[in-house]
């Protein structure tokens, strides 16, 4: 069996080197990345997600929202991310340290959501809930996240202003509420030291090297 042993060593090396380089290498660099404590604000960033938002992240994950929406803002001179109001700075690794399941996404059939809760054209929770019920833009309606029920006593404060038969109301399920809370909790604003844009003068200096 000529070359048998060397062949398998080669296969292992091929696999191991790429794994060590990309996965292990970045793990060593970023694995212990901690939230950034801001003295002047007296708290750490990114802030922890409220519990309901963490549940909403699971809804986002299992419905596969990431197949149409990214959650990564590219730097201002890269694409139109800033011009579209998705965020003033590029997303950095630290933005994601407290997320259980990171949903960077690979497709922008819909807009980026990394900074959804803090965008200048922010959508409030009621309108967002309505968007999920109606078809909004190219996004399908998610009617199964709502239930139609009989009004007993007073109308629910959460009921949508959608056309429901008299005596009935349409209310979001806990899953819909969690999803909305999650989307509202997404922010990408805090200025980490590493998130500052590169100064053009510094770029020139870099080129001289």
């Amino acid at each position, binding site marked *: 069996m000529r070359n048998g042993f060397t062949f398998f060593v080669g296969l292992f090396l091929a696999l191991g080197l790429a794994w060590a380089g990309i996965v292990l290498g*970045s793990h060593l*660099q*970023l694995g212990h*990345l901690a939230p*950034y404590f801001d*003295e*002047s604000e007296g708290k750490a960033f990114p802030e922890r997600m409220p519990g309901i938002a963490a549940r909403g992240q699971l809804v986002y994950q299992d419905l596969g929202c990431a197949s149409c929406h990214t959650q990564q803002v590219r*730097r201002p001179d890269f694409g139109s991310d800033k011009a579209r109001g998705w965020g003033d700075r*590029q997303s*950095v*690794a630290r933005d994601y340290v407290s997320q259980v399941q990171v949903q960077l996404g690979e497709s922008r059939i819909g807009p980026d959501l990394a900074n959804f809760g803090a965008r200048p054209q922010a959508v409030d929770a009621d309108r967002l809930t309505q968007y999920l019920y109606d078809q909004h833009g190219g996004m399908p309606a998610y009617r199964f996240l709502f239930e139609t029920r009989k009004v007993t006593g007073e109308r629910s404060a959460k009921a949508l202003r959608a056309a429901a038969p008299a005596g009935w109301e349409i209310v979001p399920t806990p899953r819909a509420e969690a999803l909305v809370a999650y989307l509202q909790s997404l922010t990408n604003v805090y*200025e980490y*030291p*590493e*998130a*500052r*844009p*590169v100064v053009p003068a*510094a*770029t020139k*200096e*870099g080129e001289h*090297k």
Partner: protein
Amino acid sequence: MSDQDPIDPRLEQAGASDESLLTAHEKLRGWKADDGANYRMLPLVLLFAFSGLIFYAGIYLNKYSVRYSPSAFDENAPANTGAGPAVKVDPLVLGKKNFESVCATCHQATGLGVPGIYPPLAGSEWVSGSNERLIRIVLYGLKGPVKVKGVEYGAAAMPVFGKVAGSGYNWSDEKIAATLTYVRASFGNTSPAITADQVTAIRTKEGDRKEWSQEELLKLP
């Protein structure tokens, strides 16, 4: 076995047996870039292409890897991005934020105060004058009568801001320095900045103490 047979897609015949396929390629193994007098261009061209790719890869890697820094997200960043200590926030920006969220409640966003109740900061001799006095007022507070710009304020009650006993704000020295720097550069004031080190020095010198009064402060340089 003639080549003129139409090929039946239902049953494609092999052009070579497995055994001969293996044997033929076994003979082809080995390096034959220059096979005797049979000089061949293709291997050289391929090798050249491979070296070219490696060369390009090296250049690109060298130019855009930012020395494998974990905190450089822009490939054009200078190599030391984020590697050193965290970049300080501009004190004027931080100071403005602090002033507007806390100080402006009494001294007003214009720095003019409220006549008879809250003394002004704009053009105040206390702001533009001695560092020693100004820092002490913010660190430990001020109680009792005070005279600003010739006007007497009967019962001043500047709260304690520093990280000292009895403080309701517990502002860090950096935060106090930034706020004072902002105040000294705004509302028409043009006094030099105050550093966090100056604040730290006074705080360590004085330790924990009660609010200052005007008389005590005026004894200081």
